[in-house]
Structure formats: structure tokens, C-alpha cells
């Protein structure tokens, strides 16, 4: 059972378009955005790794203390990054696949540019926290 998780969707041009946190532990004063910082630092590793394989699920690319960064890269180079402390590899893979489907449905309308923030927030949020809690 994982206690904390931070999920960010980063678009092609390195702009986060969606953010969600689950089960946040007590935040320290001097490291309020620690999770986001860790994920941002992992972007470089993801960049290099993405070109070495044709798979979409990149497993865990980086560690920080007990937290693991897992990444899933889509065809359009949109990265789903998850910071977590769970060991459930298959659960995380199926979580990413669920999100991938949701993501495609969100960007399919031509009036929603791929680099925009994901606005369908209420429903997307609900689905995401539900899937996250089921997976963890």
C-alpha cells in the first residue's frame, strides 16, 4: 500500500498540463514542492531513455530516498510521470494504460490544443483519484 503519490502529465514542450497528489504526508516548510522538483529533475533521464526503446512504459527511471519515479511516454511524447513508493509494477502499468485512454479522449477534439491544460477537471480528477486509490 503506497501512502504518497504525485502524478503529473507533461506535454511535448515540457509544460505540465495536469497535476494530482494523493495521500500527502506532512510537508516541510523548506521543501513544499519537493515532489514536483523530483519529477522535474527526472525529465532529463526520461528524454534520453525515450529514444532507446519503442515501448511506452519505461518502468522506474529514477529514485529519491524511498520514492520511485515511474514514467510512461505516449506516441506524441507526452509523459505521464508518477512519483510513488509502491512496489506494484503491474498495477502501475495498468494505471498508466487507463490514463492513456482518458488522455486520448481528452485531446481528440480539434478545438483542444494538445499543449493546453486539461480542463475537464471535475470528471478527470474523479476518475484519476479513483483509479489511483484502486491501484494503490
Amino acid at each position, binding site marked *: 500500500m503506497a501512502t504518497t503519490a504525485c502524478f503529473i502529465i507533461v506535454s*511535448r514542450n515540457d509544460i505540465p498540463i495536469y497535476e494530482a497528489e494523493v495521500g500527502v504526508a506532512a510537508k516541510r516548510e523548506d521543501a513544499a514542492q519537493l515532489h514536483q522538483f523530483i519529477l522535474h529533475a527526472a525529465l532529463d533521464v526520461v528524454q534520453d531513455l525515450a529514444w532507446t*526503446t*519503442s*515501448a511506452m512504459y519505461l518502468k522506474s527511471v529514477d529514485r529519491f530516498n524511498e520514492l520511485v519515479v515511474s514514467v510512461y511516454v505516449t*506516441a506524441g511524447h507526452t509523459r505521464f510521470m508518477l512519483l510513488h513508493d509502491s512496489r506494484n509494477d503491474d498495477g502501475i502499468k495498468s494505471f498508466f494504460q487507463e490514463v492513456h485512454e482518458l488522455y486520448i479522449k481528452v485531446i481528440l477534439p480539434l478545438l483542444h490544443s494538445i499543449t493546453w491544460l486539461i480542463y475537464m477537471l471535475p470528471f478527470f480528477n474523479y476518475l484519476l483519484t479513483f483509479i489511483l486509490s484502486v491501484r494503490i
Partner: protein
Amino acid sequence: MIGVGKVKQYGNVLDKPLNKGKTEVSLSAFAFLFSELVQYNQTQVDNIGELERRLEDAGYAVGARVLELLCHRDKGNRRETRLLGILSFVHSTVWKVLFGKVADSLEKGTEHEDEYMISEKELLVNKFISIPKDMGTFNCGAFVAGIVRGVLDGAGFPAVVTAHFVPMEGQQRPRTTILIKFAEEVLLREARLG
């Protein structure tokens, strides 16, 4: 009649399934819509270059989404990381889904390392269009060039893509060629990946 068939109504677009559904759309409906698109843009611009750019931008949006959708649906979540891989993806998979057939040919340019050409005897979007003499080299295939550019750009292979008419002896209508010129970083990365 409109609305006769029973289609299940979904309350939210996130609930609709992503599977294929009807794979065919009426050609005349598409041709009508496309001609309206071209005519609308014609009233908005002063010159041909601008018109081609607008059609390309319209195609770019389509291409970016086609890439995501097809990789998920038809390719079982495998990305393309090599040049030849993405070119054959465009030439076969994308063409098959969009136009119902594989593109006629895929060639590598002889003069430059970074040029590739996809040729088609009669491009679907040009089928019902004739270009008046005073529009010179304008080609409505710019829309398809935009789609290809959207796919390549989305996959991480930036390129300049243009559509050209190539006259063929013995045939009344010229062949259409989509010329793809890759940016230098693509070739450098290809060389690095070996």
C-alpha cells in the same frame, strides 16, 4: 434520414469507447466539407502562400491526433523511434486509415540525405478540385502535407513537408508528391542511434 439509427448516448465524452466504430465516411460529405474549408480560407487570405499555410495548419492538428490514436489503437502501444519506422508508419498505417489504401510509393531523395517523398497517383483531397491557371503552383494537398507534418512532429521528427504536382507522361492528371525534408537534428540523432 438523420438520426434513424440507434446510437447509444454517452453522458460524457470520457465514457465513450475508443474502438473503431464505423471505419468509412461518405466521400461526398468529406469532399463538400473540404471544399468549404478551402473556400472559407480563400476569402481570408491575400496570397497563395498564406492559403497553403492555413491548410497545412488545419492538417497539422489532425496529424497530431492521428498519431496518438493510431499508435494506441492499431499498434498496441509501440512508439516509433527510428526514421524508417516512422516513415513506413505514415506510408502504410496512416494512409490506410485516412484514405483506405496504402500510399503508392515511398522514395528516398537522390540529391539530399534528408529528403523523402511519398507519391500518390490521385490524392483523395484533390479528387474533385481543379486549380485555375492564375493560382500557379498551389496544391490543396497542402492539407495532407500538414497531416504528415503533424504526425512527424508529434513523434519527434521535425520536418518541412510540402505537396507538389509532378506531371507524368501519358496521363492527363499529374501525380502528387509529398516532399518531406527532415530537420538536421533528426539526422544527427539517427546517426547517433546507429
